[in-house]
């Protein structure tokens, strides 16, 4: 759990990895404050630089053991400090504090001012999708490493249990496998997915007992 705590090199490496993984929710939150893409990138980098400089995530426990909540609170403090600092520099010069550039071409609709989602909601949704992206990437890597990339591509379609998705029989026919073999393969696939999901969440919470709560919370955020 949260091995990114403390001053050891391993903790530092773990913290850097977390920063690389979860930069997107941070960036999305900053952008939703009406800050332009370049400035938002700079602020995101600056925030992580400060976090790495402190080399300490022990304060995470204050946020009920959630890295997600801790980063958001820290980010709000960081942005408030930055705003004060910038205001002090630019005060009296008649300059606009923030240049509201056009939204970048590759950004989601939720960044637009008309979008009713709050910045925090966007942050949490981004967090959930980043987490899932990470889990599916690990699962895909495992299947690729054993020469089963095609099997991964088929079985992943069964994960959401979506009506109209290819059936196990369809997949069996496509891959030249017995239907029973596909059923067993999917059982293992789903089991592995669930394990990796919990393993990934474990990196962001303080104790194992928080894992299920965090997962349920992330689902509720997406369903809200």
């Amino acid at each position, binding site marked *: 759990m949260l091995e990114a705590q403390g001053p050891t090199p391993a903790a530092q490496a773990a913290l850097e990895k977390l920063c690389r993984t979860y930069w997107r929710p941070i960036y999305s939150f900053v952008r939703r404050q009406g800050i332009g893409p370049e400035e938002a990138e700079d602020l995101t980098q600056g925030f992580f630089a400060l976090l790495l400089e402190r080399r300490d995530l022990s304060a995470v426990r204050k946020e009920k053991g959630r890295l997600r909540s801790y980063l958001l609170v820290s980010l709000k403090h960081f942005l408030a400090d930055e705003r004060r600092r910038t205001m002090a520099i630019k005060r009296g010069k008649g300059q606009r504090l923030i240049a509201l550039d056009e939204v970048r071409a590759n950004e989601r609709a939720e960044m637009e001012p008309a979008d009713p989602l709050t910045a925090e909601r966007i942050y949490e949704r981004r967090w959930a999708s980043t987490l899932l992206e990470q889990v599916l990437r690990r699962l895909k890597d495992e299947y690729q490493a054993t020469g089963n990339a095609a099997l991964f591509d088929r079985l992943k379609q069964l994960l*959401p249990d979506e009506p109209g998705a290819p059936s196990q029989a369809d997949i069996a026919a496509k891959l030249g496998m017995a239907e029973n073999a596909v059923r067993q393969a999917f059982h293992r696939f789903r089991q592995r997915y669930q*394990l990796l999901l919990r393993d990934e969440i474990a990196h962001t919470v303080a104790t*194992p007992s928080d894992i299920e709560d965090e997962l349920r919370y992330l689902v509720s955020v997406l369903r809200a």
Partner: protein
Amino acid sequence: MTSVLRLCRKCGAEIFADAPEELCTACVLETGLAILPEALDGDGNFAPAPHTKIAAHAAKMLGDLGDYELLEEIGRGGQGVVFRARQKSLNRTVALKVIGLGQWATKAHLKRFRREAEAAASLDHPCIREQAI
């Protein structure tokens, strides 16, 4: 801006082009909620090494049945429960089917259970392990 790829056919949510593996994030995460029992340890916690931990826990909980040490439950049917077990006298791993009704089984139940075992024992195929009744 990232375009909406399609709507999820299960929940109707928008699936963006940059969604993980182009799947509905909410539905896939929800699938993760319904944890399969094999992935949890005895205390209901996430078990990073499922096979060793669960087997050890099952053995601890299940105990012995005559010459057999019950290792884990591997399936359930209409009549009974199948366990992976170790036959202590021959030190071999076997699949052991136990009648589900236990001490409440009537003569008729036992007869039917025995008939099924005899039928299974009469099968001869390289893929079928030998049956002991």
